[in-house]
């Protein structure tokens, strides 16, 4: 830092400096406690009233994991999820889209390893109309042959775009590296060209009939519910969906192949190298989770965390590198796990030095641990930021739906803050070192192999394999 002082106006006036303010007393805030209930058809309902939130968020969890897809028709859960909004017993596909947009609503669906998620957002005044459409989509989807055909063609069109995207490409390569071929986890969530092209309306209807039932579904409804008779609305909408309970799909145990190695996906002339450095770690049922969350934040949660402090703010190698965890499987039975990853992209010509520095950060962390100050700052951020992160209805609904999906109790998030505050530096250090051990990581790099392969081989972070060259 320079010792000279200048000011905006040049010569003359200086602003008056004041000492840094210390802040007042924190005002009480708690993560909303949802009210849990069920409809006569067995559908579980969680609701939370959030005054002032005029856009209502509805998240519906459907217990249809990707593991339930037939091996030769992978992607069928995705096509089914998308097909839900392609017409019902009351509307054609075009009419359905028009009616939904007339409500000012957005409807998204996504099929993931843990299940299918349907997300609706709609202004409170039009909740009933939109919920009726969503209920139709779940109760009586038409899955018209010509629309399914189009969804399949569109899905095939999307695949090359995903492969051309360095971040997506890195993720797909990581899954196929980390998990054995026989595991559903090793293959793309939305199927490959080979499996998607064989999906037809019959396959979609079969998957729907086998897995979508009200008794195994949960609707989370959050927003300003003032003046809305939600019970009456639900009775008329999601309450009209009928069906018997389905056999739950219990996922098979997975053997993780996380011995250290490097896979480079050759992308000729790429100006940056996309990095994804990963292994498998705990899910949120594991008692270590609060320590894990704290430790991973200290490593790579923000611009002032250990990784960016060196790679971005000291060296300028990157726009930003983050460490995070994504739950892949979770159950009260305790067999869950998540994908732990360090992600970012670095300029091609500094790929070797950037990775060397990244590993040095990990080694230093393992050798010396976190400091008390780092731990304190992380707790203050993770706990303090809660009221900001959950301002909107959609953020609250999303967090509640995640809990349901992961078989966590409804007060999980609310209690997490107390647990974070009780976690010490030693536990946080142990958790993050276990999460990212310097000698136990799988590295995927998407970049120009001709320029980066040799420098990466010299690092000794695992045997290097180049694919797509």
């Amino acid at each position, binding site marked *: 830092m320079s010792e000279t002082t200048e000011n905006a106006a040049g010569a003359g006036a200086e602003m008056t400096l004041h000492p840094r303010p210390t802040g007042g007393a924190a005002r009480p805030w708690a993560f909303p406690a949802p009210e849990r209930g069920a409809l006569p058809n067995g559908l579980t309902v969680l609701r939370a009233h959030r005054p002032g939130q005029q856009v209502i968020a509805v998240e519906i969890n459907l217990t249809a994991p990707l593991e339930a897809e037939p091996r030769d028709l992978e992607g069928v859960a995705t096509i089914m999820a998308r097909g839900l909004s392609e017409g019902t017993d009351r509307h054609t596909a075009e009419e359905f889209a028009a009616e939904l947009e007339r409500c000012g609503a957005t409807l998204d669906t996504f099929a993931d390893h843990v299940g299918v998620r349907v997300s609706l957002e709609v202004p409170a005044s039009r909740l009933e109309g939109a919920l009726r459409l969503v209920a139709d989509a779940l109760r009586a989807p038409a899955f018209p042959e010509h629309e399914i055909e189009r969804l399949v063609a569109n899905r095939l069109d999307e695949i090359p775009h995903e492969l051309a995207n360095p971040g997506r490409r890195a993720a797909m390569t990581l899954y196929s590296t980390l998990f054995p071929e026989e595991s559903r986890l090793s293959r793309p969530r939305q199927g490959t060209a080979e499996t998607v092209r064989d999906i037809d309306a019959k396959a979609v209807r079969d998957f729907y009939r086998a897995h979508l039932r009200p008794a195994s579904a949960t609707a989370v409804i959050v927003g300003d519910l003032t003046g809305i008779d939600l019970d009456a609305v639900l009775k008329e909408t999601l309450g009209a969906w009928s069906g018997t309970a389905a056999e739950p799909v219990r996922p098979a145990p997975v053997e993780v192949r996380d011995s250290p190695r490097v896979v480079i996906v050759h992308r000729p002339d790429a100006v940056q190298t996309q990095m994804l450095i990963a292994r498998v770690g705990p899910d949120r049922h594991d008692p270590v989770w609060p320590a894990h969350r704290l430790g991973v934040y200290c490593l790579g949660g923000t611009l002032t965390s250990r990784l960016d402090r060196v790679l971005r*703010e000291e060296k300028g190698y990157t726009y930003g590198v983050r460490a995070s965890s994504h739950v892949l499987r979770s159950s009260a039975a305790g067999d869950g796990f998540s994908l732990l990853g360090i992600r970012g*992209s670095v300029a091609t010509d500094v790929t070797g030095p950037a990775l060397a520095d990244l590993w040095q950060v990990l080694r230093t962390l393992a050798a010396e641990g976190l400091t008390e100050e780092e731990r304190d700052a992380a707790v203050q951020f993770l706990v303090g930021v809660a009221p900001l992160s959950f301002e909107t209805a959609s953020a609250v609904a999303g967090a509640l739906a995640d809990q349901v999906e992961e078989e966590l109790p409804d007060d999980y998030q609310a209690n997490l803050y107390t647990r974070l505050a009780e976690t010490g530096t030693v536990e946080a250090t142990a958790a993050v070192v276990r999460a990212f051990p310097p000698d136990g990581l799988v590295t995927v790099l998407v970049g120009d192999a001709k320029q980066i392969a040799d420098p990466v081989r010299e690092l000794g972070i695992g045997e290097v394999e180049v694919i797509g060259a």
Partner: protein
Amino acid sequence: MSMGHTASTEDTVGGLTATEHRLANGLRVVLSEDHLTPVAAVCIWYDVGSRHEVTGRTGLAHLFEHLMFQGSRQVTGNGHFELVQGAGGSLNGTTSFERTNYFETMPAHQLELALWLEADRMGTLLSALDEESMENQRDVVKNERRQRYDNVPYGTAFEKLTAMVFPEGHPYHHTPIGSMADLDAASLEDAREFFRTYYAPNNAVLTVVGDIDPEQTLAWAEKYFGSIPGHDGKHPPRDGALPEVIGEEVRELVREDVPARALMAVYRLPQDGTREADAADLALTALGGGESSRLYNRLVRHDRTAVSAGFGMLRLAGAPSMGWLDVKTSGEAEVAEIEAAVDEELARFAAEGPTPEELERAQAQLEREWLDRLATVGGRADELCKYAVLFGDPTLALTAVQRILTITPEEVRAVAAARLRPDNRGVLVYEPTPNAADGDDDEGAGSE
């Protein structure tokens, strides 16, 4: 400081209100109370963006924005980030054609800290700015450019389209990220001069929204910002006025290693702040704003020539707004066939206008987008700043959605007829080239 006017609670979204005040040094302060959640948002808009940059220094406004996080007189190193996050807040800054904004959302009891931090860098940034942060952030920004634009398929499309709709020499001809050569050329003295010219209290609006005590907040604003000297050294941006229509179609064919053919186009549209801009937004929404839009129905559902098709609008206040069409082809479909269909749909829309149902849907979509933007204190603070800086009155933000709801089908038709014409667009066509070195693995097969 003088008290400003208070918005009527009628006709504003959710009954929100805002008051405007002005400190003696020219800093405008906008306050809006909302006690539902114990959070407070601070947002500062400086009236400077990439349109103020000069030839050879594109990207300087954005690079400078990064330097604003590198410390100031009483804040060392990354202290802005450390102190805000350590207080449980979140923060960032962004740069666009027309402005640079900085924002923090804080737990309400930490509001004063955010004001102190913003004041410290507004008043004393240059006492901390040095070569080391300049060199470091230059590299960071060059990596931002690589990551967001140069290393992704179609990543430079926006830059190309912008250059087509705003001619060489126009202040909006280049985008805020700037060119690599200009980022390399920027010097520490350029950054210092930029700060001295544009970063002054009388060239900024400070907005605070949320669980606040307005009197206390105004007193803090006076305490921390009040002694920062104002000055009139600012250079106004070059004139952004342009004819309403380009006058001829501008066209570029790009042969690149992209996964599929694409048709993109940009139209010159009315400036933000006018009824015509709202009408244009509704026209683009009806034509290409969702899965019930005309272009989606035509290209994706019926013709099956496209995998995605949509229109977006970038509202600009100091130059014509931009309407951006983006169509990615399906299978082996040809761009010419898609272009003919787009022209047919645009011509029909210009002749007939939207149906009442289409207008209702478009208005409902834009209304929800507004409700979303105003759903957080941070979103509200940003909109209040925008309307204060660009249109002189922050409370216009709270009634913007009502104005959209009064637009008639004829206004929508008229703006489509006047603007969505072939002689008022730049067309960008992508044709994939097989990369000779790209053998690719089996999953990648079929991209050609």
